């Protein structure tokens, strides 16, 4: 359902996102398409992760995002690499999600199993 290979520890957000993209298509998301807008606070930058029928790609910009995710850099890297549960980070208030919450939940399928 997702990469079962624990990811090499990423040192920054682009590296973590690159690993998600490199893992390729997620079969269980073949019916899912949309764009995550990832904003790293404070002032850490903004990325757009596009999912096209389960295949993730990074985009330089977008006209429409389906789900905005805001958090700090360390939390995002931990979530993206499967070390931090997305749902509990959200419940704790460490991550803010707006827009399509069902699509936000799909992010769980993109990230690898924790190392």
């Amino acid at each position: 359902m997702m990469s079962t290979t624990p990811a090499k520890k990423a040192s920054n957000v682009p590296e973590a996102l690159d690993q998600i993209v490199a893992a390729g298509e997620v079969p269980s998301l073949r019916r899912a398409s949309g764009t995550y807008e990832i904003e790293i606070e404070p002032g850490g930058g903004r990325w757009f992760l596009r999912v096209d029928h389960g295949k993730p790609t990074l985009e330089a910009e977008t006209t429409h995002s389906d789900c905005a995710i805001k958090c700090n850099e360390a939390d995002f890297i931990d979530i993206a690499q499967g070390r931090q549960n997305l749902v509990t980070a959200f419940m704790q208030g460490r991550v803010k999600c707006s827009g399509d919450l069902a699509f936000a939940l799909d992010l769980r399928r993109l990230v690898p199993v924790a190392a």
Partner: protein
Amino acid sequence: MSGQTVSILEGNTFVVSDRAGNLDASLSDPLGLFAWDTRYLSRWILTVDGTVPNVLSTDDLHYYEVQFFLVPGTGTIYVDAELSIIRKRAVGSGFSEDLLIRNESAKPIKLHVQIEAGADFADLFEVKDAQPKKGQLYQSAHDGRLTLGYRRGTFVRETFITSTAPAHVDRDGLSFEVHIESHGEWSTRIDVDISVGALPTAVSHADGDRPQRGKDLSAWLKGAPVLRSDWEPLSRIYTRSLVDLAALRFEPRVVPGGALPAAGLPWFMSIFGRDSVITSLQALPFVPELARTTLHALARWQGTRVDDFRDEEPGKILHELRYGELSAFEERPHSPYYGAADATPLFLILLDEYSAWMADDEIVRELELEARAALTWIDAYGDHNGDGYVDYERRNPETGLDNQCWKDSWNSILFADGSNSRLPRATCEIQGYVYDAKMRSARLARRVWNDPDLANRLEQSAADLKARFNRDYWMDDRGCFALAIDGDGRLVDSITSNIGHLLWSGIADEDKAARCVELMMGDSLWSGWGVRTMAEGEGGYNPIGYHLGTVWPHDNSIIASGLARYGYRKESARVAAGVLQAAVFFDGRLPEAFAGFARRLTQYPVLYPTACSPQAWATGAPLMFLRAMLGLEPVGRKLLVAPELPLLAEGGGWLELLGIPGGWGRADAFGRGQVEVDVEPLETTMRGVTSGPAPTGHAAKAAGVS
């Protein structure tokens, strides 16, 4: 105070107060305003001139609204009160309270009116513990607004209290200096709103949208089929079930605009895999939209990985989702918790049943990946010890569930000598669900997914399972299926109601099913009101043991459907008649369970005290009985009606269900009583009652139907 509480709710926000409307939470009385599994108010006490008024009466107008009538003084009914106090409370994202004080005397009066307010922000899991909080509580009063808060790192929960009348606000509450002329009145509205951190609330106002919600309830009732019967209690039971189902609707954030049945009011207002699926199945012929939302929500939360803490595995359907502090900080595994071995096959059963009932293939296409993942879970993860049967053994030994079947108390899976079985346990009904899920999925694969190879494999696998099951679980010496095979490979040999589920799923061979029917209709399992969870005479039998001899209405509704499936319509009607007669004693609202004492012994069904009322699958039980009695089955885009109604001394001669929704649009079903069932006439039973609950005629009012 226990047993004297009043609950109102909207979604997963609820207020449990005493009968005067006050909240004074203690370990024995977990009162409060709760939302998102957190207590936002633990103290809310009205005083007038320093004393707590006494309650005259309490009216629960609707499931989301209640009114308290109070007077000051000692409560002596011979003293005329000169003040009357009315508190009207409606729940939304928080709640609003309209407070009205009337001066009934000939003189003007001055009063000091105070609301003491406090919040402990306890997680729902800790309201009965005295655990110290790990974060900091705080209070502030500014510009007429009282803020009560709790912070643990980035986890912040806050309660905001304001009033329309000018108030003195401090950290402990609000107070008003009130002057009321003779025969005059004073009023204020107090709003209690909440902040859930990052979580979006369901409605934006403290009391939601009251007029709209009233219309919504009316629309809900109008959208359901109309029932007419010459047995008057049946209409009341039916209406009560529909209203309670409306109250139990929970809007999952991941399916905007949809509602699914939560498990129970008030403590289980959350998504539960097993409870939500079974209630959706029960309610399918009446309010099919619940099933649709349940399927989509559970699909979204389907397991994606092996996670020991949450008992999560890829493809597994969740057991329970919670949002409180303990879940957020992973001190409890409910984010969500996946400790249920039956929810995954039940999900597949609901998918097929919903598709068949609504003639809706689109949802089968939409959820194909999730359905295939669920099938993969059954074969790849469901069987821990490789014996060919789906079993359970928790991955999380600290906070995971010991028993991950519907009988989820720790001591439910006992040998006939009363000793406990060992893990992993493969309970018999789960094998039935797996068989049914594979047979149904084979139909979906062939008809919708255009995958005949998968269909063939599933049918072969199901046939193999059925053959092995009938060989391995059958106990020749007891003439019954075993309750389970345990971790030592032993047959758990108690005789239980689980055998009824085997008929519902179709896994039992015909000859063995006949023997199961005999047992269920015999004195050891049949109490006179329903089939007991465990047979009298077993070592673990206890008529007031949670899963060890009590009668569960939802269990019996599944049993009645199973009996009907195998052609035992008379026995099915008998089960339906017994439990529906019992409902009369509970004012039309069936409890989660009642005691398994023999009917001839107690004369009335003895209530088993449980935390929640209504409980979703008990609420759905009468609906499933109606389907079984009328023999409602979808056949393509047509509704097949084959009624076999119980003939009762007090009625039941005819039954009409008009406007049944389904793939045919709307259809009507008519039935006349044809089946002589061996249940005692209700009037005979009631004449013998010398104590205990008496049936009343207020069900419709209490249910808020106007």
